């Protein structure tokens, strides 16, 4: 993996930097030692009367010693190696990484106000209300409506993370119908957690009463297991039901609540900004590759209506069905819909019209030996 190349190159720089530092330190130490030595020798009281010019000869000895040490050369030598590493590293970066990701940038100004709104909703959606508020006031944007709706959710989630189920249960109870419609068993999950909490406080009887009241009969199996777990109450960790103590039950409940809350709010649980930027991370490499190959296409890039190359995003970004006719390689449109031949193969309408001479004759399916009558082909809706 490329990161290792980069890391090695950087470690070389850091090593040389430390080396250069200690070399410099050493040189300075040595220089100062020599000067101090000379100074002490000159200050030596006994030498005072014997030779009045002794200090002169000591200083010229010092000069000689210093010249021999050649501190400047020492420093230079240490720095030279560091310099080599310093100029090499950016080259390694440029080689292993994309040095200019703006090459695939179309020169359009984004509406700043829109971008600010998107960023603010992102912060609110992440529960980062302080940062969101700060951002709003710094950019002078009007207050976002997203704030209030996310606030309630985060209060519920905050309580839930403290293992306080009250607000979550209240919300689930008042949206019970909608949750059922969405096929969610969130309410049941929350009640089960509450049951376990009561049981863990060693109040088995209370737990039984709670279950009777709140956990519906249709969740028979779930109920069985909850009740059985009471037999091990107090040492659940050594029982077949140790899983009931797992914190993942709580994190899953948090996730499910987020999902359902956003769903009812008409928002996506995934921040649209995160989704777009993540899609951008996948799309940029092929686009940059294309731009590097097609240097003279920069002009076209600014005006084209469709990306010049297919960009394969991974499954989580696939929100819509796309049908590409295997014959014309064109994406289906309203006026050129996908049609199912009686053999089961699917082509676009244009292809069928062409092969059947506008329905005047039957033709052979390009993918199997079947004879196809154009009037028997049926439009598909994905």
């Amino acid at each position, binding site marked *: *993996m490329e990161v290792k190349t980069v890391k090695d190159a950087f470690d070389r720089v850091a090593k040389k930097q430390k080396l250069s530092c200690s070399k410099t330190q050493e040189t300075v130490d040595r220089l100062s030692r020599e000067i101090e030595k000379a100074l002490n020798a000159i200050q030596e009281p006994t030498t005072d009367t014997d030779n009045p010019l002794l200090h002169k000869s000591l200083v010229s000895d010092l000069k000689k010693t210093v010249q021999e040490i050649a501190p400047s050369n020492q420093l230079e030598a240490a720095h030279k190696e560091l310099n080599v590493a310093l100029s090499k590293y950016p080259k390694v970066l440029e080689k292993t*990484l994309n040095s200019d990701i703006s090459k695939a940038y179309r020169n359009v100004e984004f509406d700043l106000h829109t971008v600010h709104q998107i960023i603010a909703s992102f912060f609110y959606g992440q529960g980062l209300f302080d940062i969101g508020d700060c951002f709003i006031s710094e950019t002078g944007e009007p207050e976002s409506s997203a704030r209030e709706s996310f606030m309630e959710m985060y209060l519920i989630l905050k309580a839930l993370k403290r293992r306080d189920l009250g607000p979550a249960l209240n919300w689930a109870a008042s949206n019970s119908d909608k949750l059922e419609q969405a096929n969610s068993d969130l309410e049941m999950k929350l009640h089960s957690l509450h049951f376990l909490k009561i049981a863990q406080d060693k109040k088995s009887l209370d737990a039984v009463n709670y279950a009777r009241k709140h956990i519906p009969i249709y969740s028979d199996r779930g109920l069985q297991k909850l009740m059985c777990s009471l037999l091990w109450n107090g040492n659940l960790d050594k029982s077949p039901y140790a899983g009931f103590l797992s914190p993942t039950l709580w994190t899953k409940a948090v996730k499910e609540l987020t999902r359902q809350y956003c769903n009812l709010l008409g928002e996506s649980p995934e921040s649209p900004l995160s989704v777009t930027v993540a899609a951008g991370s996948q799309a940029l490499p092929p686009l940059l590759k294309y731009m590097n190959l097609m240097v003279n296409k920069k002009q076209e890039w600014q005006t084209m*209506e469709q990306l010049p190359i297919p960009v394969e995003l991974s499954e989580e970004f696939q929100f819509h069905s796309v049908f590409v006719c295997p014959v014309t390689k064109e994406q289906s449109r309203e006026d050129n819909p996908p049609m199912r031949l009686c053999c089961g193969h699917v082509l676009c309408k244009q292809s069928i019209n062409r092969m059947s001479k506008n329905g005047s004759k039957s033709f052979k399916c390009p993918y199997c030996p079947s004879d196809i009558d154009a009037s028997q082909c049926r439009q598909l809706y994905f």
Partner: protein
Amino acid sequence: MEIDPVTNGNADAIMTESAPTITPPTTTPVPSSRLSQLTESLKLEHQLLRVPFEHYKKTIRTNHRFFEKEVSSVVSGVGDLADSDWSRDDTVARLSSLVSRLQGLKRKLEEGSNVENLQAQRCRARIDHLESADVENLTEWNNTKLKRILDLVDIDIFREAKKVIDALKNREVASALTWCADNKTRLKKSKSKFEFQLRLQEFIELVRAESYNQAILYGRKHVAPWGATHMKELQHVVATLAFKSTTECTKYKGLFELRQWDVLVHQFKQEFCKLYGMTMEPLLNIYLQAGLSALKTPYGFEEGCTKEDPLSQESFRKLALPLPYSKQHHSKLVCYISKELMDTENPPQVLPNGYVYSTKALKEMAEKNEGKVTCPRTGLVCNYTDLVKAYIS
């Protein structure tokens, strides 16, 4: 009564009614396409590594220059001392001052190397951050990435730039010139003529103020040295001496326009970004553009588009409007009911009315409703056995 063995691993299974007795933790192998995709997107992180490195490099260079100067001046101090005729006491005093100078230098050395080490750690931490990305924690990693794109992690570097930009907007070149001096060697290496342009602007300002003598003096000192490489531009600007700032002569009118200062700001940004290996456009915009284009389909703009698609949101639609649509070479079918991909594992099935859903979703529906399925978009009810297959290549 049967007791299901329960382990920590599938605690969640207990919570759902239709839970299978035991689900062994399945680790599906990571498809190689995902890995290479990750590797490719890590390659986008040049700026993340480059910017702190340039900072680090600058510190090293500045420190080195300083120590070199100090040490060589101590060395020549010793030399001077030996070559002149000082008394013993003077010699002692001078040597002592050299000693204390070196003492101070040692302290500075320590501080300097501490700063360098801290900056090295910062560079290294970012490399580690890249290395920590893997397919398993990608969602989390991407989230961190987005936060750092929004956060301007290298904020102190931007502060440095802002000072110069603000000054240029006030029509002062001093701090821009200081910046040029600080980065002289590197600007020279990249053949930058930014300093020349600053000098020309100052010259023009002197002409505007009708201080012709000063303009000539200034020109001789600061503009003329650029003659060797930029003679034509130089001549053009110096010729303004013959004109007033109100000139209508089209060839020179433009030089006096205040807009020239904006040009300088733009050029500074360019030079600055180049020096630190940064992109001119905000990273967020680059990623947003690429992402929006890759996600942009005609369906995203339709009524009732799924909320999961960012383009279902008005604000994202607005940004995507001037951008190109994505392009697909292969069919990709997503089940309307389960939102799962319809492929050979989960092939599409066609209702008598032509509506297509995934086998899994239809089967599940049929099992719950005595073999009947209901089309969620048209309300048509039919038997599961009435469905036909469709082959999409």
